[in-house]
């Protein structure tokens, strides 16, 4: 029997483990990766000429990074690897992959989307000034290029990445002016039972906080973020917030890293016409998947953060599981013990992540407090006031309707950075639950595509 044609999108932890599992079963998958090198966001590899050690780059995850990279290197001759290639569309069992201006249709029997996640952002007045980065962006700058986003950096938002990036900046010798967490400390205590599902991860988090304290980085919990100050010419100059005792404070800085956990990158799943469901706990729409990563569409599988944001270890496990699902669906026998092991580790991580969500919740209610002048959609310069206007005056209560009337989410990022918060603003202005607002539909190309694009034929 001919082997199924399998495409894996993304060479991060999920994609690499998925490809590896497929290769072990005798399949030669095509791996499409937008970046130059494998490793994904977390184990991003530096350009070949850079010479920093694994320990410097990845700290206590150096072993994991090394194992993923070397396993991928070993796979290279057994897969069809297409780096610097963007899967810009999916239709009729083809992935359209553009590389250097040439778009090639790649047919598949099975498509495994391991496209990762991007930061989840809540707007704040001034976040459109130069010098505001997402937490993930700040981390990439450091990891890939050994650059700091500024001389004096404030990290703010909530979630484990907040402390991780801040600690990585401190370790790299950057000046971290403050870490501002919107979640109150008490929630972390309440979440402890769930966080104990992964004692090592919990301990790591505590070490990060300790390292920040040692470096005398001012840490605030339970803050209310008011604004980023600055101007269009000089960019970010400071951050204003109310501390947990409602005392207004200002921190001077020239750069801000902002983020509230991550959101799955779901455009390809959307273009592949997968069904989505609303997750009340995370207040996010996510593609429907079964335990092994099968979507609602036959032949389309999702793994890693682009299915559920659960972090790198879960991504490795879910990448394996998705490969097993592909194999099973094509009549291969799969090793039950390995499936079980992957499922067990995923279950543990899910519990831990539920703890993180409890400890560091998305502060959705802040959408209500955003002043009208705050920019929500930075591509199109749409403010919270504009959005409220289309809700109140033009009757838009649904995300795509509000987009049609206000242009929110109509720019280059297609709502990936403003859509989630935009939905909260609409929901609050309309007085409806956020799930009724729905989600912005994905539209190809998933990233800007040059008009000079050519057919290979």
């Amino acid at each position, binding site marked *: 029997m001919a082997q199924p044609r399998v495409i894996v999108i993304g060479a991060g932890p999920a994609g690499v483990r998925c490809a590896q599992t497929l290769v072990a079963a005798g399949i030669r998958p095509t791996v499409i990766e937008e970046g130059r090198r494998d490793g994904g966001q977390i184990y991003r590899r530096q350009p070949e000429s850079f010479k920093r050690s694994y320990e410097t780059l990845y700290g206590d995850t150096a072993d994991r990074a090394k194992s993923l990279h070397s396993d991928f290197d070993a796979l290279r001759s057994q897969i069809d690897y297409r780096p610097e290639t963007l899967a*810009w*569309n999916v*239709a009729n069992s*083809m992935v*359209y992959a553009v590389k250097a201006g040439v*778009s090639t*249709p790649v047919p598949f029997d099975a498509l495994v989307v391991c496209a990762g996640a991007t930061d989840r952002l809540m707007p704040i007045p001034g976040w459109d000034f130069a010098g505001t980065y997402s937490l993930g962006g700040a981390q990439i700058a450091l990891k890939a290029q050994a650059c700091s986003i500024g001389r004096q950096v404030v990290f703010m938002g909530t979630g484990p990445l907040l402390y991780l990036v801040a600690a990585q900046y401190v370790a790299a010798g950057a000046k971290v002016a403050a870490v501002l967490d919107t979640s109150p400390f008490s929630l972390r205590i309440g979440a402890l039972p769930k966080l104990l599902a992964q004692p090592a991860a919990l301990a790591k988090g505590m070490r990060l906080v300790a390292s920040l304290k040692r470096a005398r980085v001012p840490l605030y919990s339970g803050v209310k973020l008011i604004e980023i100050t600055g101007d269009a010419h000089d960019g970010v100059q400071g951050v204003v917030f109310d501390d947990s005792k409602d005392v207004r404070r200002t921190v001077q800085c020239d750069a801000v890293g902002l983020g509230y956990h991550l959101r799955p990158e779901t455009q390809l799943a959307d273009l592949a016409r997968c069904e989505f469901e609303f997750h009340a706990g995370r207040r996010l729409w996510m593609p429907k998947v079964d335990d092994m990563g099968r979507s609602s569409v036959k032949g389309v599988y999702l793994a890693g953060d682009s299915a559920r944001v659960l972090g790198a270890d879960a991504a490795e496990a879910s990448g394996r599981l998705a490969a097993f699902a592909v194999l099973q669906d094509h009549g291969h026998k799969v090793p039950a013990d390995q499936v079980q092991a992957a499922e067990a580790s995923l279950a543990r991580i899910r519990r831990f992540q539920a703890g993180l969500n409890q400890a560091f919740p998305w502060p959705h209610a802040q959408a209500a407090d955003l002043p009208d002048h705050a920019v929500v959609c930075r591509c199109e310069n749409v403010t919270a006031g504009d959005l409220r206007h289309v809700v109140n005056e*033009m*009757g838009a209560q*649904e995300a795509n*309707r509000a987009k*049609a*009337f206000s*242009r929110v989410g*109509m*720019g*280059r990022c*297609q709502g990936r950075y403003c859509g989630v918060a935009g939905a909260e603003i609409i929901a609050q202005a309309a007085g409806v639950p956020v799930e009724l607002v729905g989600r912005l539909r994905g*539209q*190809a*190309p998933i990233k*800007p*595509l*040059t*008009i*000079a*694009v*050519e*057919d290979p034929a």
Partner: protein
Amino acid sequence: MSTLMNAPDQRRYDADVVIVGGGFMGAATAFFLRQRGRSVILLERGLVGQQASGVNFGNVRRQGRFLPQLPLANRSRAIWGRLPELLGEDVEFLPSGHVRLCYDPVHLDALEEYAKAARQLGLDLELLSQQTVRKRFPYLTHEVAGASYAPVDGHANPRLAAPAFARAAVRAGAKVIENTEIAAVEKDGEDFRATATDGRIFRAPAMLITAGAWGSLLSEQFGEAVPIVARGPQMSVTEPIPYKMREVFGVMTKIEREVVYCRQIPRGNIIIGGSTRGPAFPDIRRAYALPTSTMTQMAEIRRLIPAFGRLNIIRTWSGIEGYMPDDRPIMGPSGKVSGLFYAFGFCGHGFQLGPGVGDVMAELIDTGSTTTPIEPFQMARFAVPVAVAGGVDE
């Protein structure tokens, strides 16, 4: 919404006119019926203007149309110019000029003949030689053989137009009921009855079907099915660049893939349409932008304006439009049932007509006749076999 057994108003006329289908045609007719003092209910399955009317290219183009349609298009154009005053809202209509050009010199005669005939019907077009085109629009490919120019046609924002009409209709006293799918339409004695999938019933002595690509599903309930085919024209939009290109450009050709058109909005984005149409799925209310169509469209727009090769597109989409075999809409009274009217199946060119169709249908329903000729669009024409013509969207 009442399902009570003794609901007292079961026999009450809900309005003078019930309109099924809240696209541009339905919304505009509702508005103009209110202007004539007629009470009206507009029923829409989803949200007003969400289908073809909200996702089209936005061309407000008269030239190139079937000549007997020009009086209607002219009437519509006159209303486009008065929209802010009529509706109290701006739908971004810009009468910035429309250029219809051809590559093949054999089409120059056709452009000239069209201009001559259009002048008789009240549309003044300027013929542009190859040299003039090169001077006035230096960014166009040198392949352009000539063009005709309509100075006061232009473009508008389709996302805003139909909803703006519906809101203005509501302000004028119309009932606009969204999220209401009509499953059955019938005549019950003197009245028409529209029954929603959830059981609600709407009645009126006159009914207008403006259900777009779904029109025949309703007209067939009156024994007037028509051979409508749903297709999905393909659209894309670029990232914004400085606003320089005022006119709308469209290629006139007999080759489907060569048909490409574009316009720039003051915000800077360039909207592109044309080339091949994709399939559409009216049952799930979706038409998809196909990657292969995007590729063809990119190649053709590069050919028309080579400098666009340096831009990126940031979004593509499609929408469901109904096409008739002769490329003309169904518009006017039913051929069978008195009090029943149709306005659907606009074959890729209904956006420009929207305000005019609303005005004409309101006049027809209100007075029993219309001052603008619409005979060529009679439902009754499908009693006889028709010739199939190739169509061009814009």
